[in-house]
């Protein structure tokens, strides 16, 4: 291949290419973006898998995430420790799932984690939905309207009648939404 780069070994790049939806060039570009978030923290040489994590505050300042009301939850959904600290692997994972070619099922799993308060339980209950709605509308709706929307949403999507949305309910609803794939997509 073209110019010899020393950031990753060939095997690492092959692994990235097989496990994510990015090509080698895009992985190198992502590394550039990761590096410029904290140039003194992120090493240029990843051949021996350095253990470097960037804190949440740095990641959510990226222009792609800065104005997104769900930015904290997005980053937390992809961090191993749940606090939002991303290593480069998790950084790549995040943008890979949010890329154009990721399949609907994979996106639905992470969308559920983002919209549900994933630390507490594995369900989307009414409180989670209220928080999501307030983030969506920047608290422009009145509390009664928020209440009504939450109730109707759960009523529409809940299949097994437990007044909460499990992942199966959520995925079933997403599968009927043709726009989901195009809106749940960040270009990097």
């Amino acid at each position, binding site marked *: *291949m073209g110019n010899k780069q020393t950031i990753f070994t*060939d095997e*690492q790049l*092959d*692994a*990235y290419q*097989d*496990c994510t939806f990015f*090509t080698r*060039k895009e992985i190198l570009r992502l590394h550039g973006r990761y590096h410029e978030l904290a140039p003194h923290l992120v090493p240029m040489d990843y051949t021996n898998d350095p253990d470097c994590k960037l804190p949440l505050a740095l990641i959510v300042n990226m222009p*792609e995430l800065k*104005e*997104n*009301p*769900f930015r904290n939850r997005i980053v937390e959904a992809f961090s191993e420790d749940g606090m939002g600290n991303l290593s480069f*692997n998790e950084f790549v994972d995040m943008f*890979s799932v949010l890329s154009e070619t*990721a399949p609907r099922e994979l996106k639905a799993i992470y*969308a559920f984690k983002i*919209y549900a308060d*994933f630390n*507490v*339980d*594995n*369900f989307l209950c009414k409180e989670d939905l209220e928080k*999501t*709605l307030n983030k*969506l*509308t*920047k608290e*422009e*709706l009145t509390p009664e309207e928020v209440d*009504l*929307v939450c109730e109707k*949403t759960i009523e*529409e*999507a809940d*299949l*097994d*009648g*437990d*007044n909460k949305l*499990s*992942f*199966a309910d*959520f995925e079933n*609803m*997403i599968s*009927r*939404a*043709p*726009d*989901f*794939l*195009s*809106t*749940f*997509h*960040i*270009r990097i």
Partner: protein
Amino acid sequence: TPMDEETVHDSFNQLIAEQSQDGALSEAFELQELQRELTEEENDVSHLPGREHEPGGRGQRDVELGEDERATDPLIADYWSPATMRILSSMPSRTIGRNRGAIISQYYNRTMQLRRRRQSRPSIKHLEHSARPSIRGYGHGEDTLDAEVGKREQLVNNLRNLSVSDRVRMLREMPLSVAEKSELRRLALQKERDTQGGRKLHCCSRLKFYIIILWQVALKRVSGRFGTGVLSYFVFIKTLLLFNAFLCLVTGAFLVLPQVLFPPVPAAGRPPFCGLELLTGAGYFTDTVMYYGYYANYTLQTSCGDEDDGHHNASLSKNATLECTSTQLSYNMPLAYFFTIGVAFFITCIILVYSMSKSFGRSFRIEKSHGILAMKVFCSWDFKVIRETSVRIMSENICTQLKELLTEVGHKDDDTTLGQQLWRVAVHALAWTICIGSTAASVFSIYQFSEYMHGNLQESFRGSTQEPLLREASMLALPVLVSLINLLLPGLFNLSAWMEDYESPSVRTYVSIGRNLILKVSILGVLCYHWLGRVAADPQLKCWESFVGQELYRFLIMEFIFALLDTLFGELLWRLFSERVLKRRRKPVFDIARNVLELIYGQTLAWLGVLFTPLLPAVQILKLLLLFYIKKSSVMMNCQAPRKPYRVSQMTTIFITLLCFPSFLGASVCVTYTMWITPSLSCGPFRELKTMFQAGKRWVKDLEKANPNLSMLARAHSYLVEHPFFLFLGAGIFLIVIYFQSQVVDGHRKIISLLQEQIENEGEDKKFLVTRLQSIHEQKKDPKRRERRQ
């Protein structure tokens, strides 16, 4: 009976023994709520008279439970028995997507299925064995560490045995972290010692890579500011560019290049180059490789025998000439012309139908009206939008849409009186009359004007009194008229739609698209009649195909110029006007549907013109490139994000369908008709033939003569092509297949509703079993309570 209770308890024993210890305190709170809800339900139920004698003794248990509920404090941490808690915490509904073991076993099952090449979706046959799909598909909760490791090894084994593309696809789809996936991959590839490193990109994927990075930065900026809707317009430009690039490549390689290498004898009296040619396509360009008339109607041959000096004597020279003709490269121009155009259209058709079906599959929804609010909440936030003002506008939009949906859901009433309904129908009828009337008027005016222009042309052949430059410039009059109509009439349609009242914004968009489509189809129809009916039949025009090609070139150029003017006046000046004069802060909105229809119209012209002007796709490519940059700068400077909701996948599907059906189909019908009528006698590759099809038939006859074995094939071919019976048979089979598929879709719909019912019942069963388990546990472990009660 106690025996039943024993078996129930025992069957859960095994599962309980295999559960991993989970820190389930947080879940305990949630489960307690569930229990409270359930017992509240059952309390209500038990208060109804006559419920104590329920079959199965359920009512009794419930009453007992209810009493228990009242007796104990519901917030005691060990209210749920540990067994019940363990069961509940490992249920698939709680572990999907979270529990690593569950993911690994799920993907083990999938890779197993892939290996056995079964369908990955469960077929209908499998459903009858599943009373409990929740237990069937998900690896039975064998989540202990050993079981997980075992499953992991099996998964690695399966991955190893898949093909490369399948393995890559499986790996990418797994919802695990990248580190774990690369570990799995490393283990799977460990045993394979073949060189995976340095895998060179397949040429197809390299091409795809270059196509993807074209305009990537520009598209990102547009989507960051305006969202997915406006982005789809620019992506559509890119798609059209690819189609034209393919056409250009094919015609360039097979038609233009050979003809350029072997130019015919240049005709006398070629006018000098002046700037007007770029607009009219006539003059200097008339007798060039741009148009049909230039192409040879004989077989092009490389000349040979020039290098030899006269060293050979007579006999040798005869041999030499024989050898010469056999090593000569010959290129049958008429045949090449016919087949190139035919094959290019055929391949374009296949690509179009394929992308249309893919797009349709992505956007098709079986149940249309159910779940709109939920989808609006979860799927309407466009993650691509980056700019702060656009994000704010998007929030406001979503807020408005939610409020509208709430009021709709609130009262879906139709308490409009008869008078109001009649008034609405009258307004609609008036608007449609205006639109159809204006369309008919413009079509009639084009018809008359084209006849007038044609009369002018015939006069000019008899004896020209005008100077040639003016005559050529007057050829631009018809394109200018048509482009003017295309520019002004949609504005009229918008005005008449403004006074109408529609049920939903999507109906408004569809009606607007429909009206614009009718306008464009009628315009193109009358133009095709003018070209193929009037111009082609005119005996005075020596080379009508080249003339039609020039007309199409003029139309394309004029369309481009008017698009520029529209951008300038519609967007830039309007913004300046509204800012300075009207002092409003609202910039104009980019009308996606109208612009896409303009693109489709331009592409139809390009497809119509390929037969007459093989270089027209190249002109279209240039035009699209310029249009992309101009529209992008205009949109960034002058427009604001759209305020109306825009369903991207649906609209994209509609646009691709419009590109395929009226546009491409119309163009190919015209081209087929052109191939049927008599070509002109004095120019072009089909000079002496009766129709263009003769070129193909002649070749088949020549083949038959050269090789008598092929006569069967030739006869079969002529029989097939000339008898319409096979066409009807093919169409009939096609319709039967479509009907069959639609019945299958209907059946799927019914199965979906049955399965939804089943899911609800499963939920009820689950609740019942869990509470039963709980009550049994309590009865077993707390005999004192029992005694106390009794």
